[in-house]
């Protein structure tokens, strides 16, 4: 699955509600079918269409589960770290870098754990910011692309962001990258956290509206 997430796929509450209804009816259909085999063929055909359709729709939201894979070791190359849209002369195509965990709920959850235990939350809180800038809004000083966020964490930034590359592993940084992207809903809904086990601080990431990311100057 591509990590390039199209924001237009998400964000319609009504659509998700109908997904769940379809999924429920499809599962009911399977249960009835298995137990009694009394459905007439026409009804069965309708049920299969509903089932196939809902599985397809659910598939849009479900993470692609992965097992026994090696942690990512690759760090973004310098050509991917451009943070300016202005290029003198003919514009070059900046290579897109896929975040290995943008579609992986477990890794995003790990990223959230790191975000709190490594004290990212001490400066950025739960995305609203404090000492550091907010991470849940549409403004990005050093870029919102996975490789740009990777670099912000690994290399640090000059106005107070520490350089974490000697403290965290590449895998941990990628987990953080996807969690940070989830704060403004830049990753698929299915991979975002749906609840918070603490005092209600904000809407969970899964319910946060998509922000259209923009490069911005220092606030």
């Amino acid at each position, binding site marked *: 699955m591509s990590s390039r997430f199209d924001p237009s796929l998400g964000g319609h509450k009504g659509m998700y509600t109908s997904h769940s209804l379809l999924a429920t009816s499809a599962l009911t259909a399977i249960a009835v079918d298995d137990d009694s085999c009394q459905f007439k063929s026409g009804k069965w055909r309708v049920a299969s269409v509903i089932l196939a359709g809902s599985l397809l729709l659910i598939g849009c939201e479900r993470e692609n589960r992965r097992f026994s894979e090696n942690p990512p070791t690759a760090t973004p190359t310098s050509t991917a770290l451009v943070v300016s849209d202005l290029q003198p002369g003919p514009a070059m195509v900046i290579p897109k870098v896929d975040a290995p965990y943008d579609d992986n709920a477990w890794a995003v959850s790990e990223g959230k754990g790191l975000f709190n235990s*490594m*004290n990212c939350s001490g400066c950025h809180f739960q995305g609203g910011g404090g000492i550091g800038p907010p991470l849940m809004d549409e403004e990005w000083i050093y870029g919102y692309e996975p490789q740009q966020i990777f670099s912000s964490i690994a290399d640090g930034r000059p106005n107070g962001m520490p350089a974490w590359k000697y403290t965290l592993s590449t895998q941990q940084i990628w987990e953080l990258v996807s969690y940070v992207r989830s704060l403004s809903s830049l990753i698929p809904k299915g991979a975002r956290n749906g609840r918070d086990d603490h005092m209600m601080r904000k809407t969970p990431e899964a319910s946060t509206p998509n922000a259209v990311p923009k490069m911005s100057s220092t606030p």
Partner: protein
Amino acid sequence: MPGRGRARCASHRRRLIGVAVAAGSALLVSCKGDKEKDDARVALAARTGPATATGDTTTKYADDGQWVRPAKDFQGTRFSGLTEINNTNVQNLHVFGTFSLGTTRGVEAAPIVADNTMYLITPFPNIVYALDLTKEGMPTKWSFKPRPENASQGVACCDVVNRGLVVDAGKVIFNTLDGRTIALDAATGKELWDTQLANINLGESVTMAPLVVKGKVFVGVSGGEFGVRGWLKAVDENSGKLAWTAYHTGPDKDVLIGPDFKPFYKMDQGKDLGVSSWPADQWKIGGAGAWGWVTYDPELDLIYYGTANPGPWNPEMRPGDNKWSSTIFARHPDNGEAVWAYQLSPHDEHDYDGVNENILVDMDWKGSRRQLILRPDRNGYFYVIDRKSGEVLSAEPFGFINTTNGVDLTTGRLQYVPEKATRLGQVTRYNCPAAPGAKDWQPAAYSPRTGLVYIPHQNLCEDEEGLEANYIAGTPFVGANVKMYAGPGGHRGLFDAWDPVGQHVVWSKQEDLPVWSGALVTAGDVAFYGTMDGWFKAVDARTGHDLWKFKTGSGIISQPMTYRYGGKQYIAVLAGVGGWSGAIVAGGLDARDSSAALGFVNAMKDLPQKSTKGGMLYVFAL
């Protein structure tokens, strides 16, 4: 006072410069109008010092025309004897001049005036400007860029503020966010020395205004939210060399507790309490900085200051009294030796720092003349303390409190309400006052004419949940989820006149937003303060009636002051919203996260509609 009288006094003063301090103080008395004389006892004490004091803070600048340190005098009264602007004519104030600081973060500093020059310091990057008062339009005489480390912005808990510079013995002395203390030649702006005191890789920064006493510059560290080991250092005013360091946690020898140490209460007596009142080794990262105010009593020759909150905020991670956090220290300025200490909030549960100002006043207390500390504390109690012994004479609430049940005056101990304690993984709701306390850094003023203390403060409560905090040097060490909101009544700010003898509020002005500016009071019986939506206000010091207001370009969270130049009185204040309370604007924070900026953002969601950022000086005159 008529103009001729002032001129005569001024020329009289010029002839007398250089004579003994006693003569100088007599002169000051003679310069006062008749109606001031009766009430000037304390003010007189506040403006004179012993003849042994070095530097010119106690002689040449013992003059209401000047304002050489943020708190005006050593005693921290923020009272000016000037009367040209008074409660009968203050409504005629108009803007005399402005100056842009060129910065966009919170401005907490006071303008400083010495020798016909106004000195300003900006928030990070801590640029110093000298403005020439002798020329039309107050042009810049010189400016100085200390170029603090950019990365120091990452270890400043609550906006990158600076609380002011001081002028002493022909030097401008100030601190930078990255923990340097710098002295400049006041006339030329040339750097004289630059001493690194703090280490940002340990989470240390410096935001406070230094105080200079007898050739020593006192500087305290910020970083109670970064697991620093708090300290106050003394630097030699002439060489910039470190003279002594007093830590606020650890063994007595590091805290400069020796044979002279005689705390009044049993709870503060004992050996190495700075170690034994902590879990093993946790004093090494226990916070307790000193980022507020230092005051000085020339008669007892003691400095007074308060220490900050212990770290982390989560109290369950640090069983014990956590000495010497949230404590008042009285020390000898020469060697730093502690004379007494009093812990205001032992085992702090709610970030009740003890950095607030100790205003030093001699007054009648229950029939006898006492040397007192007047202190509106962050925990919500107004303390009256004998500054010789450290005995608490009174501690009455000046704000709404439900986290504690008063102070036991026989033991000195703050009485916590157990149900309001902060617990790991549990949410305690409606804790009042919230983490910034009933009053944060914003300094109060004392008028010897009215005998009242003018307290700018806030009315906030909070929900709080303890979290496990993980110490990583140079990163925040807090361990709490906080969500603040307005306290009872719905107003978030107050400007109160408090009678320290009667121990009650005399008048109170409610403000929609927290009153995060300092107070100024004058012998013209006018009190000044600013609001976070940019109003600069003058009220009658006796009645609290509104007299005048002016809307500046940004919210005011700084310290107003007054000075005289060319026989004319001026009032000056810096606008520029920010600080902890204004971080939502200064840092462009997102209010959808109610825990942002340690939970303050939740209480300030409307501020971006009420103020925009930008540092600017405003000077007013009749």
